[in-house]
């Protein structure tokens, strides 16, 4: 049922290439016909080799051979063409699906991306798509020609001799049954094997992934013993599964040789009877043709059962891809959504409530009013929900109740693009993209001049390390920053916002990986940047946020205190305790 739905979706992608599809099918019929005609033509030639009245009609042979040559040549050419067309359809279809999947990733709500593992999504877009391509290609190139071959051979054989054909038709399915029987009985062995394999991978992952810890505690022997125990079980299980599944080929080969012997027997007898009575028998040439057909007829049967498994696998992969593509995207921007230009920076939260999980409220009845240019600090222990607040401000998540207003407009009525570009964001977790240093700096302002870039880098104190890199600003950096240190990556992230100078700032532990001395030096630049700009600052070190206009103290997801440093200290609440613990005696 599910496969059918997936198949329909796959066909929707293929429809674009319907012309090529039809051409490919036509070519399949022609090439199979060509390939099947050749044994008959050869059989005819062989029949000429019987002396009639002591003479072989040798002159009749060359023209017949010429025909064979032409048929073989054309068939080969068309086979290649079919292969090229099949490749083209499959690779283009997979490209289209991949593009759709990626485009969809860019509009999926963050709530989806945050809860799904990256590895899982990546494997859908990359390896599932790849396996789907392999299966589809195999299906195209073998399934259709296989079926045509079976039907064609059957037709040709029937035309030659119905009785021998009957023998072939009755015997051949035996090989299918044998193959099916073996596949079924090894299924459990393979399942067991992949279970143990999973266990082994987990063991490797755990031990070797944390090899240094293992060594620090001298746990090498225990780890080895555990691994070898699993490995022992894996060997036993693998041996059984590998051996029993490898019986398929010999067994079907045996059945095929039975078919071959049967054709030889009935064929030869028919030839003898024919020449004895001088009537309805087959010739030696036809027998040789029959024998070659018997081989051809059984081959696709064996292949098709393999292809069907592959195709099922391919469909399963496609289903995982479609699952991703069909995941509901974030709500689109409202049609009359406002474009927020040159935001002044007043932010108001009115009775905001929010939760990640429907029935577990996280933020409730939250109110705040921030005037343009104010500096807002958010503090609290790890996991208290500081990031949640930022998620709401940037509309990575939408509030579940109440509303947040920017410059007096509900942010849900502002285009995401304009809202987000009004903020400059530096997160604790630095993210760089593959490209050059410059590419990473100009992310928010692609048309920046070199002078602007260098000025921004000087302001963030990143210039000195960048210019020491082999190619300066044009040094390529690998995925997620490659060899740059955590601190250097953070400096680059700061440079980004120094360059685009957005009207509002969000600094989430923006300097956590930079040593405190360099941090001091960047402070100046930050101070200048924050002047007149509404800024939100998350910091662990309370000493850095004392002069904030508003301090929001969060705990367990809700805002429990709100005020200035002095007012909160004198209130003697949570903030005061948190603040004083920094200086407590050991």
């Amino acid at each position, binding site marked *: 049922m599910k496969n059918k739905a997936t198949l329909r979706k796959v066909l929707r992608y293929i429809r674009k290439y319907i012309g090529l599809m039809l051409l490919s099918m036509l070519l399949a019929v022609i090439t199979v016909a060509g390939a099947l005609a050749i044994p008959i033509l050869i059989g005819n030639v062989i029949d000429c080799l019987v002396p009639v009245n002591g003479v072989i009609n040798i002159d009749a042979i060359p023209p017949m051979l010429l025909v064979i040559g032409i048929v073989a040549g054309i068939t080969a050419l068309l086979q290649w063409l079919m292969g090229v067309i099949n490749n083209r359809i499959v690779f283009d279809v997979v490209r289209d699906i991949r593009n759709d999947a990626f485009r969809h990733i860019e509009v999926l709500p963050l709530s989806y991306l945050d809860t799904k593992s990256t590895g899982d999504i990546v494997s859908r877009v990359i390896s599932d798509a790849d396996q789907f391509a392999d299966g589809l290609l195999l299906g195209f190139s073998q399934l259709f020609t296989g079926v045509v071959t079976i039907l064609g051979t059957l037709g040709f054989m029937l035309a030659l001799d119905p009785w021998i054909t009957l023998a072939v038709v009755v015997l051949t399915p035996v090989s299918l049954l044998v193959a099916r029987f073996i596949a079924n009985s090894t299924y459990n062995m393979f399942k067991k094997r992949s279970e143990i394999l999973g266990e082994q991978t987990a063991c490797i992952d755990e031990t070797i992934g944390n090899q240094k810890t293992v060594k620090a505690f001298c746990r090498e022997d225990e780890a080895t013993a555990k691994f070898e125990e699993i490995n022992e079980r894996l060997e036993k299980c693998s041996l059984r599964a590998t*051996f029993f599944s490898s019986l398929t080929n010999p067994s079907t080969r045996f059945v095929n040789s039975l078919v071959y012997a049967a054709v030889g027997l009935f064929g030869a007898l028919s030839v003898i009877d024919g020449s004895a009575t001088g009537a309805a028998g087959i010739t030696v040439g036809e027998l040789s043709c029959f024998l070659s057909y018997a081989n051809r007829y059984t081959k696709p049967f064996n292949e098709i059962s393999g292809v069907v498994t592959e195709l099922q696998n391919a469909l399963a992969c496609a289903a995982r891809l479609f699952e991703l593509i069909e995941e509901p995207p974030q709500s689109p921007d409202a049609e009359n959504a406002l474009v927020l230009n040159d935001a002044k920076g007043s932010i108001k939260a009115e009775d905001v409530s929010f939760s990640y999980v429907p029935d577990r409220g996280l933020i409730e009845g939250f109110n705040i009013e921030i005037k343009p240019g104010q500096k807002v600090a958010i503090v609290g222990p790890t996991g208290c929900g500081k990031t949640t607040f930022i998620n709401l401000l940037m509309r990575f998540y939408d509030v579940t109740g109440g509303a947040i207003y920017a410059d007096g407009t509900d942010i849900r009525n502002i285009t995401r693009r304009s809202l987000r570009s009004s903020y400059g*964001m530096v997160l604790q977790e630095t993210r760089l993209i593959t490209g050059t240093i410059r590419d990473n700096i100009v992310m928010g302002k692609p048309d920046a001049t070199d002078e602007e870039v260098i000025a921004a880098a000087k302001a963030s104190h990143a210039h000195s390390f960048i210019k020491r890199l082999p190619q300066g600003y044009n040094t390529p950096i690998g995925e997620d920053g490659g060899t740059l240190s955590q601190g250097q990556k953070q400096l680059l992230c700061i440079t980004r916002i120094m360059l685009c100078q957005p009207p509002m700032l969000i600094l989430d532990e923006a300097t956590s990986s930079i040593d*405190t001395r360099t941090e001091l030096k960047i402070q100046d630049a930050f101070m200048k940047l924050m002047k007149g700009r509404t800024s939100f600052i998350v910091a662990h070190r309370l000493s850095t*946020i004392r002069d904030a206009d508003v301090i929001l103290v969060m705990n367990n997801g809700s805002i429990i205190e709100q005020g200035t440093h002095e007012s909160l200290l004198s209130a003697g609440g949570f903030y005061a305790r948190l603040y004083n613990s920094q200086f407590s005696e*050991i």
Partner: protein
Amino acid sequence: MKKLLKYLTHGYLKETILAPLFKCTEAVLELFVPLVVADIIDTGIGNGDKDHVVLMCAVLVGLGALGLAFSITAQFFAAKAATGFSKTVGNALFRHIQTLSYSDLDEMGTSTLMTRMTSDLTQVQTGVNMTLRLLLRSPFVVFGAMIMAFTIDVSSALIFAVTIPVLAAVVMGIMLAGLPLYGKVRAGLDRLLGRTRENLSGARVIRAFCIEDRETEKFAHENDSLTHVQRTAGRISALMNPITFALINLAIIVLIRTGALRVEAGLLTQGQVVALYNYMSQILVELIKFADLIITITKAAACGKRIQSALDGGTGMEGGSEKDGRADSPYSVEFRGVCFRYGNAAENSLTGIDFRAEKGSVIGIIGGTGSGKTTLVNLIPRFYDASDGEVLIDGRSVKEYDIEALRGKIGVVPQKAVLFAGTLRENMQWRDNNAADEEILAALATAQAKDIIDKKENGLDCRVEQGGANFSGGQRQRLTIARALVGAPEILILDDSSSALDFATDAALRSALRSLKDTTVFIVSQRTSSIMHADRIIVLDDGKAAGIGTHAELLESCDVYKEIYDSQFRKEGGESA
């Protein structure tokens, strides 16, 4: 590669020889089939002898049955050798990895080692299995068919002698042309993978800067170039079947043409021509199988080479024989002019470090990112050897100690807080397999982790998922501290181990650690508050000791320390971030 094969020929010599042997016997039987068919045509049909036909068909069935028996035996030996081989190599590699030193691990990279152990090994197993089953069989059938052709008729067989090398050349040529393209396809896939991964993990940044469209465009572009390479590769490999098909048919045409002349001359029978034709067809089938096999083997060989290099890599670390330190030494840890340089780094990570730590004292280590804090503490349990100078524990050089005895004295809490799958008790017994519950609970209390297990229904028996995934970062950090405390270590090393703890918990932890009178404690931190009350503080700056002393002394004498301190404890009215 050769050394890897040793594992095959030593442990599984019998299987390695018998599997191909049986397989070739099966192939010989197959080669008789066309001869039997020729006999049916020439003797059976030629003489109208039905009994002979029946007999010969029975022979065909017999050949098939014998072939089945031989082939099953061969499959068994091949499977046995392949799985056994992969087990032996897996064990050897795993054991080898356990002997690697920290420097070896840095150099080789753990993720590389993990791929060697998993997917590379599986590929090799398949490779060995297929090789034993097919590598000898296909050439055997091809050349066997040619030899059989020679026994039938020498001049016709010459056509075989020409066709086979031409076919082999074509098959090899197409494969060689295709292989580099497949490398490019892989590289293209890797690029797409990288792009997808970074768009997922960096989703916030990408959306914050509104560069979704640009990224989509880049992806589509890379996807296009991948498709382009795939098409080219596909076009080349699609040549394989048609060309071999055309060549074989050409050969058959020539074969029948010369055959016809020789039949006319009375040198050949009709049945023999059919037999020659059948041999030619067999060659086609085998050659294509052989080409597939070569691809599998090439892949497996590449994986095998990588496994071999992992097995050869690393030098390990030689331990000494001493179990105990000198009883008279007042110092628990002593560094004498220690320098350290990582593998092939250009500069020293540590230079000229000198200090002594009395038994039971608390030593704080502070400095900026990359100043060498972790490197310094890693020299104490001899995770690395100093490139110059000497590290002493209890008055004896770390190199003189038996490694297990040395590390048994030391409890380490690494930066990365990982637990291992199992129960919590098992995790806590890492330093001491026989640690009693009371001792574990005491350690948990010291590490401020008591509340974690109090909340768990089955206490110490609660399950720990792989990596400790069912605990939060802060919980894991406290549990790893407790793990290091079990078995009363003489030296405790906390490498930035309280970063995920809030200030209040951190302070409580520090005061609990103070009460361990017999343990020398090393605390590495970026926060002045974590180390300011230590008996001695080592301030590292760019691998050198910028100052060693108490908090008060350093505030007076050490500019670096003062700067760090001021950046964290600013005077009232100071600027802030």
